[in-house]
């Protein structure tokens, strides 16, 4: 079996994997190992066992360890007769390998089960991959359950997305999630993108922060609206108004009970 010579000790330090497609077989390969087909995937948060692993791009992967890629097409899987790990009936033709807490794990799936799990070269589109990795962690779990959560449980008051859901799907539930899950994002965005601030097409937000009638309201919106109003007031040199707004923001941030602090859907 081909060996992976640098186990994942730390999600930050070596948090990247690549995905390969050789003759229809997909394998995740740890940083520094070569893949012979032009496929890579985007970063997602995925929780595996007790470890939150962040997947990122292949280039980051290759250079994360400052090592040259090792050329290895994993001959261990060539011509192997293996039963599918999921159904146990069919011959496994899809082989997945990854490192969890320093241990190498393998998953072997028949094409049917692989299809069900959406394992294909398009899986870098994300959701399916995150889901797969999540299930994969369950299947190969060896770590005792009592390990503490690495990330505190958070819930978005607007859309009720939990941090667990976010880690599983890699998807946020609403615009306010960007505030709520900021701690996650501050870590993730630099690895995903060339920068952390928007550069490019801009649109003007309405001054009154008006939203569609059936919109979901939340305290976060209130804060944002006030901040937008404040910016506007300052730029219009309406300093009295600005001072009032500043006080209101201060109150809100200090935990003054807000009148619309409930997650109320205003639907007809």
């Amino acid at each position: 079996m081909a060996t992976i010579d640098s186990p994942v000790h730390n999600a930050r330090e070596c948090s990247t994997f690549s995905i390969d497609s050789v003759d229809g077989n997909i394998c995740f390969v740890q940083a520094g190992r070569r893949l012979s087909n032009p496929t890579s995937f985007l970063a997602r948060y995925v929780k595996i066992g007790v470890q939150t692993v962040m997947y990122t791009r292949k280039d980051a992967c290759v250079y994360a360890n400052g090592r040259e890629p090792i050329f290895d097409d994993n001959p261990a899987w060539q011509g192997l007769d293996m039963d599918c790990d999921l159904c146990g009936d069919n011959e496994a033709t899809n082989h997945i390998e990854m490192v969890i807490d320093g241990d190498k794990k393998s998953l072997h799936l028949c094409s049917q089960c692989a299809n069900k799990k959406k394992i294909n070269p398009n899986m870098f589109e994300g959701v399916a991959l995150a889901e797969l990795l999540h299930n994969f962690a369950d299947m190969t779990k060896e770590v005792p359950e009592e390990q503490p959560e690495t990330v505190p449980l958070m819930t978005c008051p607007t859309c009720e997305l939990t941090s667990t859901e976010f880690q599983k799907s890699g998807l946020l539930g609403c615009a306010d999630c960007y505030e709520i899950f900021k701690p996650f994002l501050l870590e993730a965005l630099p690895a995903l993108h060339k920068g952390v601030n928007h550069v490019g097409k801009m649109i003007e937000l309405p001054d009154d922060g008006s939203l569609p009638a059936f919109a979901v309201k939340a305290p976060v919106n209130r804060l944002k609206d006030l901040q937008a109003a404040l910016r506007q007031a300052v730029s219009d040199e309406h300093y009295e108004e600005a001072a009032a707004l500043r006080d209101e923001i201060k109150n809100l941030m200090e935990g003054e009970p807000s009148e619309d602090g409930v997650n109320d859907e205003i639907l007809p």
Partner: protein
Amino acid sequence: MKAKNPIDQLADQPVQWLSDDGPDAGITVSTRIRLARNLAGIPFPTKANTRHRQAVLQMVREAVAGVPLMDGCIDVKMSSLAELDRVFLLERHLISREHCSTRKTGNSVFVARGENCSIMVNEEDHLRLQVMTAGMQLEQLWQLVDHVDSLLTERLQYAYSDDLGFLTACPTNVGTGIRASVMLHLPGLVFANQIEAITQAVHTIGFVVRGLYGEGSDTAGNLFQVSNQSTLGESETYIIEKLEKIIRQVVEHERNARQVLLERKPKYLYDHIGRAYGILRHAYILESSEALRQLSALRLGIDLNMFSSIDAHTINELMVMIQPGHLQKIHNRTLDENERDIARADIVRGRLNDSKRQTTDEQSH
């Protein structure tokens, strides 16, 4: 009176975004740009309830009415489409794989008559706005999609922040929400075994190369897509300029690889192409991967001026037409695998013989 199936209108017309004359059409097949957008104040599709989704669709529909490019566009709900029609749209690159497999309330798509623009509603984001064209025309395409997007903002309030730009369901798209991609035909680099090296090089600058088709067939047609990954911290025009530079370099490498093959192994190359032509002209059963492989070889032959009677568009279009959804749409019924292989060979033979006949006619005048 029974309304005509809107998808039939598309099936009756050639694949527009492959038929137009694009610059550099030999190696660069087509260009696509998509923007991810969400509406302010409404949960993203993953967290939206039925009424949210319906409301999003209604608002987008009203906004689309203000876009001249979308005049008389096809407006269909995914739930109203038969499986065959959804696969057809997928193969035509008008909807995504995810959108193809969902039939939730509010999942919808708007397709411009000319197929150069489509808007998916309630996919991963509320809107996925996409424009396509033949050849490499990144700059023009960006102007087009930017224009359409701006028209939509006149009637839609997007989820947007000054710091993070356009807010998307997945943080991988936040900021510009742009994905620009160019489809390339790279048989020379595949022959020369240089695809991997190119892929690595492209990755190091934050762009990605991937195969076009699904599992197994992904490299059969030697078609690859190069696209950006980062959407935050760089402007759309910067991303597009960078992508254009990368494409020019890849195209240059492809040209060199072809030149080297021509110089070192001309007979090998001609034989490979000639055999492909023979098979495509005369086969009665064609599996998908073989068809793609041989069409790719033939396309290379056309680029090398070996065939005066066939143009690259014919091959481009065949590559789309020979997919299962298209074949079944043409026959207007479900076909099993064997029937598809026969239908595939029929259509390829028919097209190539047509081209042949036309030239003979021209010569006899």
